């Protein structure tokens, strides 16, 4: 009985199988934590706030040249948020004004070409542009938006 008491049958795990299981565990842990991180970032529970205070001269070139189409392209390409922030808000404002201008022009010319519905849609777009001129957020855009309106009135 004493020998039986002192003799403990220690079972050593197979080292190769143990190592394999540890590798599998690391692999599954990596997948789990990446998925969890992505899931929480998608739900905006975690994630860095983007620093927008960078150099905006890159956008100024198209802004001052009045190449609003290229400016729009750049803003979408670099995923600049459209939220009236102090760095990029003025670019988005003039781009939206130009969108209304372009659509108003298309509808106005379409109405002249015989499309009955186009007059009402043109008036909607001109109204939206006029509203933007009255409630302009960034002072630099006031003159530019007024110029667009004048151009439409001259059509």
């Amino acid at each position: 009985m004493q020998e039986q008491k002192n003799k403990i049958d220690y079972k050593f795990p197979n080292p190769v199988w143990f190592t394999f299981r540890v590798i599998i565990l690391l692999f599954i842990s990596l997948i789990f934590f990446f998925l969890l991180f992505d899931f929480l970032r998608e739900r905006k529970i975690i994630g860095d706030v983007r620093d927008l205070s960078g150099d905006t001269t890159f956008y100024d070139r198209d802004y001052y040249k009045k190449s609003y189409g290229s400016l729009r392209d750049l803003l979408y390409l670099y995923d600049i948020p459209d939220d009236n922030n102090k760095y990029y808000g003025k670019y988005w404002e003039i781009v939206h004004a130009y969108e209304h201008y372009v659509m108003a022009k298309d509808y106005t010319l379409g109405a002249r070409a015989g499309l009955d519905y186009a007059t009402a849609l043109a008036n909607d777009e001109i109204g939206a542009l006029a509203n933007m001129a009255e409630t302009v957020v960034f002072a630099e855009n006031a003159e530019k938006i007024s110029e667009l309106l004048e151009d439409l009135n001259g059509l």
Partner: protein
Amino acid sequence: MECKNCGANYRLRELRCPHCETENLVGRIWLMRRTDTIKKIEEEQRAARKKFVPYVASKLVNRLIILLTVATAVLIMLYTGYTPWAKRVDGKIIDPKAERLLEEKEYMELYEYMSRKDLFGRTPEYFAQSALMANDYKEFITYRMKYIPADPKNWDPSYVQMTMMKALEIYTHRIGMYKDEYEENKEQYEMYRPHILAFWKGTMGCTDEEVEWLSDAENWWHSDELTKMCKELKERKIKDAGAEK
């Protein structure tokens, strides 16, 4: 010991007398005590084994593998939307957020959401067409702003053709591999078509025959004819602008 019944000698640990089968109480008590002792020893051995580090590590690794595999499977199901309770149409899942964005007509947000979660191909086709059409319309507006200046003399025919092609794709809802007309997207078609028609007839000065040609989805292949049409449109516009002056 000596049997009380027949007087025969036998071992203390026997449960019965081998000669007369009389029950041996002493032997029974001995066996009970031995069994208890053996059980106690086995428990002590088990307790000692449980504290043995490699054994503990091995058990821990096994349990972690099972736990993390189940957790990962649940997370994959929630992330991809392939849950047993998800709505399905023709075997494809309907993502609840995508469905809500489509109902609320937030088409650009739908495009961004489907791109982020790689839902194209995994949701019903009208979702993909709607999202891609919104992105195509956004691109059409950019091309219109960039490549169609007020003075037709500044039109570059190749860029004009690019703009016209984009407009043709949206008007005929020929968006990549999603060419069919879907009832669910009818409102969206009606949102974009009026502008494209006004652009063709008004800004570009297309005739009714040209608009009819552009409205035919089959003409998407005939890029030579479209190139020729874009050159003619430019010349016509320059001539009209000259006549107006």
